[in-house]
């Protein structure tokens, strides 16, 4: 295996970081706009993984495993993630939007529990882990002492394309401008004729779709899915978003890659440290620089 910071670990860390980045983007966008830690976001990721699992078996009759099938599965996983996110927002968060912030947080915990336990209670899904099918045939490349599978490339490519698309949407389109406006000042945005509720739904839709895509990628890369699989990656992606500065999109991506690399390297050193490194990072960040790398300092208004 070599040393802790071997190139192999960095590659594994980047792969994990790409998955965290897709989840972290949803956290940071939702937080940026409605100031809510969406506890259920990790479960949107789980829903995406199961949607990918189900759609693989639906379409495997028509297509052999390969790029075409993987693309269809990716689209369906994203659609499922987006749908569950928009539904959750509509039924659970929207009625509480102007109530104290902690009530939405508690509701989010409730939604998270509901999704996890409902998925393990439904007999077709069940609580036990399932092996994830090879949607793409796996190939290994050997490159300068580093083993790289095509999954690494797929993970990074999917994450990269989605992130570039998101940056374009936010920076270059009218919709993106409206999103930025809502995140700065909801009331002023409303006065400018922006439909704030629609923008919030859209934010949940994009965040959910990204989490769904991450679900497929995680299923491919670590081929075991279960109803509780969203808890820890969700938490770690959230910590990545805090590390980068919550509300900041480049911050979430950078934080996620730092988190991915830190975790693989720490695990190579000691498995206990690997499990705990995310929380160590969180506590250090919150004590030294609570606003994160790219975050803006905010002061209490009197």
């Amino acid at each position: 295996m070599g040393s802790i910071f071997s190139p192999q670990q960095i590659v594994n860390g980047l792969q994990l970081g790409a998955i965290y980045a897709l989840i972290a983007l949803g956290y940071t966008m939702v937080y940026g706009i409605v100031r809510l830690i969406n506890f259920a976001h990790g479960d949107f990721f789980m829903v995406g993984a199961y949607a990918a699992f189900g759609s693989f078996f639906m379409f495997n009759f028509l297509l052999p495993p390969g790029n075409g099938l993987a693309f269809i599965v990716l689209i369906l996983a994203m659609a499922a993630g987006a749908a569950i996110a928009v539904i959750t927002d509509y039924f659970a968060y929207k009625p509480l939007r102007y109530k104290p912030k902690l009530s939405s947080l508690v509701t989010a915990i409730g939604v998270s529990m509901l999704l996890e336990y409902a998925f393990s209670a439904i007999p077709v899904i069940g609580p036990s882990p399932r092996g994830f099918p090879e949607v793409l045939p796996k190939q290994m490349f050997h490159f300068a002492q580093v083993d790289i599978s095509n999954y690494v490339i797929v993970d990074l490519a999917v994450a990269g394309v989605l992130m570039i698309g998101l940056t374009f949407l936010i920076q270059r389109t009218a919709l993106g401008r409206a999103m930025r406006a809502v995140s700065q000042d909801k009331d002023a945005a409303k006065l400018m004729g922006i439909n704030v509720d629609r923008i919030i739904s859209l934010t949940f839709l994009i965040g959910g779709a990204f989490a769904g895509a991450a679900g497929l990628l995680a299923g491919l890369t670590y081929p075991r899915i279960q109803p509780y699989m969203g808890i820890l990656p969700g938490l770690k992606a959230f910590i990545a978003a805090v590390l980068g500065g919550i509300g900041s999109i480049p911050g979430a991506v950078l934080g996620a890659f730092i988190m991915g690399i830190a975790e693989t390297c720490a695990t190579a050193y000691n498995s206990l440290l690997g499990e705990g490194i995310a929380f160590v990072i969180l506590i250090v960040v919150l004590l030294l620089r609570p606003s994160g790398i790219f975050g803006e300092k905010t002061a209490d208004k009197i």
Partner: protein
Amino acid sequence: MGTLKKMKLVLAALTFYAVVQVLNLAGILNGYFMVIINRSLIAVIFAVSLNLINGITGQFSLGHMGFAAVGAYVSGTLTTLFFHLNLNHPFDNLGFLAAILLGGLMASLAGFLIGFPSLRLKGDYLAIVTLGFGEIIRTILNNISYVGGPRGLLGIPKFSNFTVIFLFALATIVLIRNLVQSSIGRSMLSIRENELASELVGVDTTRYKVLGFVVGAFFAGIGGGLLAHLLQIAHPTQYGFYASALILIMVYVGGIGSLTGSIIAAFSLTFLTEGLRVGIDWLRDTVGVPIGTEWTMVIYAVLLILIMLFKTEGLMGMREAKILIIKEKEG
């Protein structure tokens, strides 16, 4: 007269104790019911102490069972691994009490450490830190083979019985009530209502926030120790995020800030859990419906969401039962 009024809560509690004991001796409440009652009383300790942190002081802890784990493992290690206490030795009962209190003290030390970041963090960030704390505790326990690792700490002597648990639960309620209704409690409430304003009128917010965590964690540790000596096992999964979330549900269902609500919710939800379990077993084994115990948690999740959406203040709101209110002196 005056002292009698002050003792109303204790009298009510003693009546409850006497009724349960008589029914138990008469054979109406069998061992199964006694276990549920004991678990309800321990749930009361957890819910009331969490209410002090989340409801009264207005902080947000998602790792309450992490404190309970500290209490359970510290006391369990002392009674089981260090001193091999034995139920038949009369003096060992004192050792058990000392171990429980020491577990509570260690938990309050953990509460002090966690209370510290709360000086800088608010609401949702604090929720994540406390959640992280709970997970760190669980991870550490999973990896210490001396206390059993993922197998859990086994063979803990069954020192907890109805009387001990009842006395600790009563002490928890009385002490936290007295704290809440003292000037310290009013300072804590002022932090919840508006931290900035209470700091401006001279409340030492730092001190009271940390105090809330320390006291809440102490009682959670006591509850954890009692639970370990009731179930005769301490297992890392007993103290995970969902165990903490269950206590949180009790506090929110009962009413955030209302000790009465927490007590009622702790009892009713513990009984509901048992009832649902029995009902689900019956549906599966007798009727043949293929359903699992996961539905219990599905129902709780829906309950929590519905409470938050339609009755955010919980069943009791901010109200307290009359016997839990200390009367101000007249004149």
